[in-house]
Structure formats: structure tokens, C-alpha cells
């Protein structure tokens, strides 16, 4: 294991130990095919692979998952608890750790709230209206996905840093953006922007505009139409997007690392603190924080599964 610092290496290290960020990247697409392929396997033996081949493929998948997902998770928790529960709790009760947890929660709250609003507005505009430049807007929404998080952070340094475009003005007016909460929030918002919009656009496009048109022709105002018809129809998709957005907001490392300034007890989020503690050989403390992030990943995973089921059922609401 390398002890080097430097952005690139530490990012990869974190990804391996605390897969919270990776969970959010998983695309929801394949679940439908799996669900459809399952029933009927008994009757269609000719259309599936022979037993031994199936066994090998399944074994390969399980082996892969064990090595790359389960094992790292086990290591995280094992290392965190290697000196006992007392040391684990003490590590989390450190003022620095508490400050990092608080900051992470604050940043997540800010960026999820704002992206919830932006995402719904963007998805609404894209799916319910025709206008020129729509494709361009969709590309723009995807931009944070295709840009390296480090670049996303650097953009804000270039804009708000001491040598940046707005830096001198901000300094003159004593406004702190970089190396402070606003900068971290901005970088996180930028990186997590696509999640809500991406979750909603296909759903809203599929639902079309007919129910909204029906509501309007029945005399509903724009707001009534949104709150009584559009929002109830997208609530599960919206929750799904919020969930992924939150997981990424809490786990974001690259962009935040660039704009944070790593001021101890002030601008370190949980992922940043994990790296710092690790580089200082405080393994228990480092893995204790990492275990919290890993826990977040597990909760996200369970919630995601539940939500996906609700999304599938959204077409057929039960109740009689």
C-alpha cells in the first residue's frame, strides 16, 4: 500500500476503502432486464446456458463481488474496530471528527436541497416543453458526470481564488468562498447536479404531458397542476435521485479537496479527514470515519432497492 500523498493516488485509495461514492454511480438500467429474465427459466431450458456454464459464470460473479466489494467493506469495519469498540467511539468523538461529520451533513443538506429544486425545474423544462437548445441543455446537465471532479474544483479556484476573476473583489468585501463552506458547497452542488435531473427526465418524458393538460383543462392553475398531478407522479423517482445525490454529496472527495484548503476542524469533510488521518498513520480513527461512510453506502443501497421496487410499482398502485 502506497503512503504517497497527492490527489490522484489518495482518490483511488479512498474509492477502494469507502465505496460510498461508487454506489451512486451504478446505473438503474439493468434491473428491468434481470426482473424479466427470471420467470420462465424453468420452461425455457433451451434458451439458457447448460448447468456447468451457468455455475461458472455465477461463481465468477460472486468471486468478483467478494474481492472488490465485500472484502473492502469487511476490511474497513475490521480495521475500524481493531483496537476495540472504545477506541472506535473515542475516534469518532474527537472534535476534529465531529466537526467533519457536521460539515459533511451541512454540505449535503445544502447541496441536496438546492439540487432538488434545480433538478426538478430542469427536468420539468426538458420533459414538458419543446424549445430550441434542449439537446444542448441535456448535455450541459450531464457535464459534471463527464468532467473529472478535480477539474470541477479547479474551476471554482479559478473563479473565486485570490488570483481568480472574482477573487480580488471578494477579498475587498471580506467574503470568503474558497477554503470555506460556500466553496465546498458550490463544488459539491456542481458535482452532484445531474443526479436528480437524470433520475427525473426519463420518467417525466415517459409520462408525457397529457395528465398536465387534463388538469389544466379542468381549471387547475400551473401550481395546482404541479403539486397535485406532476409531483405525486414523480415522487419515487425524485426520492431516488435525492438518495443518489446525497450519497455522492457526502462522499465527494476530488472537487471538495481542491476548494477546501484542509483547515483542521473547519473545512475538512469526512472523506478529506479519512485521507488526512490515514496519512498520519492513525488507522483506527481513519477507518472509523470511513466506516461511517461505508454505512451510508449500505443504507443508500438498501433504500435504493426499496425505491426501485416502488418505482416499478408506480404504474400499478395497490389499494382497493
Amino acid at each position, binding site marked *: 500500500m502506497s503512503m504517497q500523498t497527492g490527489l490522484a493516488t489518495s482518490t483511488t485509495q479512498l474509492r477502494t476503502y469507502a465505496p460510498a461514492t461508487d454506489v451512486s454511480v451504478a446505473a438503474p438500467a439493468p434491473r428491468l432486464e434481470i426482473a424479466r429474465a427470471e420467470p420462465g427459466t424453468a420452461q425455457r431450458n433451451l434458451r439458457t446456458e447448460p448447468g456447468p456454464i451457468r455455475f461458472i459464470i455465477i461463481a465468477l460473479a460472486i468471486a468478483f463481488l467478494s474481492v472488490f466489494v465485500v472484502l473492502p467493506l469487511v476490511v474497513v469495519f475490521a480495521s475500524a474496530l481493531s483496537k476495540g469498540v472504545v477506541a472506535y467511539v473515542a475516534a469518532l468523538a474527537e472534535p476534529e471528527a465531529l466537526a467533519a461529520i457536521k460539515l459533511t451533513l451541512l454540505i449535503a443538506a445544502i447541496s441536496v436541497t438546492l439540487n432538488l429544486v434545480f433538478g426538478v425545474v430542469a427536468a420539468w423544462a426538458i420533459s414538458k416543453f419543446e424549445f430550441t437548445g434542449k439537446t444542448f441543455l441535456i448535455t450541459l446537465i450531464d457535464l459534471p458526470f463527464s468532467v473529472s471532479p478535480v477539474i470541477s474544483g479547479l474551476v471554482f479556484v479559478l473563479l473565486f481564488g485570490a488570483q481568480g476573476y472574482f477573487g480580488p473583489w471578494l477579498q475587498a468585501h471580506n467574503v470568503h468562498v474558497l477554503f470555506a463552506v460556500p466553496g465546498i458547497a458550490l463544488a459539491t452542488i456542481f458535482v452532484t447536479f445531474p443526479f436528480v435531473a437524470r433520475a427525473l427526465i426519463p420518467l417525466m418524458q415517459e409520462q408525457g404531458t*397529457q*395528465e398536465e*393538460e*387534463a*388538469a*389544466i*383543462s*379542468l*381549471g*387547475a*392553475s400551473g401550481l*395546482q397542476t404541479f403539486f*397535485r*398531478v406532476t409531483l*405525486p*407522479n414523480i415522487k419515487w423517482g425524485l426520492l431516488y435521485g435525492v438518495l443518489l445525490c446525497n450519497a455522492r454529496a457526502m462522499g465527494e472527495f476530488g472537487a471538495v479537496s481542491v476548494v477546501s484548503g484542509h483547515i483542521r476542524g473547519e473545512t475538512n469533510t469526512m472523506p478529506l479527514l479519512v485521507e488526512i488521518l490515514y496519512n498520519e498513520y492513525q488507522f483506527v480513527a481513519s477507518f472509523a470515519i470511513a466506516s461511517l461512510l461505508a454505512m451510508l453506502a449500505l443504507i443508500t443501497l438498501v433504500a435504493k432497492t426499496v425505491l426501485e421496487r416502488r418505482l416499478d410499482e408506480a*404504474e*400499478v*398502485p395497490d*389499494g*382497493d
Partner: protein
Amino acid sequence: MAIEVRNIVKTFGSFAALDNVDLKVADGELLALLGPSGSGKTTLLRIIAGLDWPDSGEVAIDGENALSRGASERQVGFVFQHYALFRHMTVFENVAFGLRVQPRAIRKDEATIRARVKNLLDLVQLDWLANRYPSQLSGGQRQRIALARALAIEPRILLLDEPFGALDAKVRKELRQWLRSLHNEIHVTSIFVTHDQEEALEVANRVVVMDKGRIEQIGSPGEVYDNPATAFVHGFIGESIVLPVDVAGDAVRLDGRPLNIPALGAASGAAKLFVRRHDMAVGPAGTGALEGAIRHVRSFGPIQRAEVALSGSEGKTVIEIDAPRDRELQAGEIVSLQPRRYRIFAAQE
């Protein structure tokens, strides 16, 4: 309420969806807008509802300018082809929606709303479905609920966009008759869009035939069927035999040979002869305007349908005629054909 549409023009990019359309609908009428897809009939309906806006022209509902009001203020009931029921609401709440979103000042109290919804569900004979969700209903039931929902706001006019388009043939037929009797009962001015000629002729008091953004003919079902105003209407409504002919003065020629029928005032030049299948009288060879060899006969019900290859066209022109079963036709037989009723329209480019 009467509806008046004047000089409506609507284009989508370079496509002219409506090209200077004028239409008057009288109070209490049940009018069908009939045409193939792309004829502009749905666009016209959506413009009247306020779901689309014309590039130019006027729409008046009961004498007042409708274009100065949005869809939500027009008090127009709209029924969609795919129902557009609110999927997260029960049937009851769907129907109640229009009453619940009314401005507080005129909103009814809960008891009144409940009573009104119950009445409407009784009217569409589906009160027993009140607590179901739309996904638990059949297509025909959904469309009736959609109609009840549209009627809840006491619409001044009722607009139906291909209301039976998504239903299977049997349900379609039932709902057609049901819509007619419902209209007799509540008498609200209604316009429905359809591409199904049978539906238009069977349900409407008056039929508006549209093609390529223009109105081709307006008339009663009998008029548009028996006296089609244009070649398009003749071809679109009912099955027609169409033959390319030349008109010179009062003489009509097919493939250069004179047909023994008057031109009925058609202009000289290339033209098309339209005859209904059942308006072609079959006689012994040498007695009619046309002659041909019967290729194939199928008999069902009161008619026999014969494929006839016309002589003088080297057997290339084959027409289908419907003859009564008073004399059984035989394949291979040479017969003469005489159009009893026909129309000649100048050929279009």
C-alpha cells in the same frame, strides 16, 4: 354554446397543420371532425380547447373571444385518446379534481362535491368503481371515467380527441351508441375527432371532413356519403372504385375508348371517375358502359363481391364490385358494368 372558428392558421415548422380553417358549430350539436392522420383535426380541437395556439385567426365560444383566455379559464371539457386519468388518484378523486381546484370563492363544500361526483359516476354507470385506481379499469371504463371527469366542471363545450381510438372493436361500438344517447341526455355542444368514417357517420349530427389542414366538406352523414364534394371525400368516405378518365365536352373516355355516360359538367381534361362498389350495375356483355371478365367471386351475406378485369386495359385494371345475389356470378364470365351513380372530379396533380 355555439363555437365559431375563423381563418385559423397553424404551422409546425414548415408543415401547415391548419390552412385558413373556418367552422361554425351550433349550440347543442354533436359534430365529428373526420380525416386521415395529419389532416389537422386534432390540432383544431386542441386550439379550441386552448391546449395549442393558432398562428393567426379567431376562436369564439358563445360569442366571446376564447383566445384571450387560457385553457384553464375556458371551461371546456376535454377527453383524451389515451384517457389521461390521474394515475395516483382513485376514480372518485379523478372525477372530483375539477371541483377541488376551483378558486376558494366558488368552490363547493365537500358534501356537494361528493354528491356531484356520485351523480356523474351514476351517469356513466360506473359508481361501483369509485375507489379503484385507473390502472385497475378496462379501457372502456377508463374512457367513461375520463368523460365523467370532463363533465364535472359543467363544461360549456365538450371536446373528444379520438375518444374510442385506443379501444377494441366491440367496446368501440358500444361506447359509440352510449355517447350518442348521453349526448341526447345532456345536450352539451360536442366535437369529437376521429379517423374512422363509420364512427363519424354513425355518431355525429354533422360531419366535417378534413384533409391536409383544410376543410373538404361539411354536411350531414348522408350528404357527405351520397354527395361527396371533392375527390378526396369520395375516396375517404365509403369504398370507391376510381378510374382515370379523360373528359372532352360531355364525353368521357377511358383508355381512349368512349364510355357511354355523360360528364355531369366536369371540366375537360384529365379526370377521375368515382363509383361506389354497389353502384355498379352488372349486366350481360354488350349492354353497359364498361366490360370485363370476372376473375374471382366471394359471396357473403346479402352481396357477392367480384373482381373484374376491365377489357381494353390488357387485364391490368382490376376493380372490385358488390352485386346483389339475385344472379350468381361465375369466374371467367364476361359481363358489362354500368355506373348507376357516379361522380367525375378533375384529376389533381
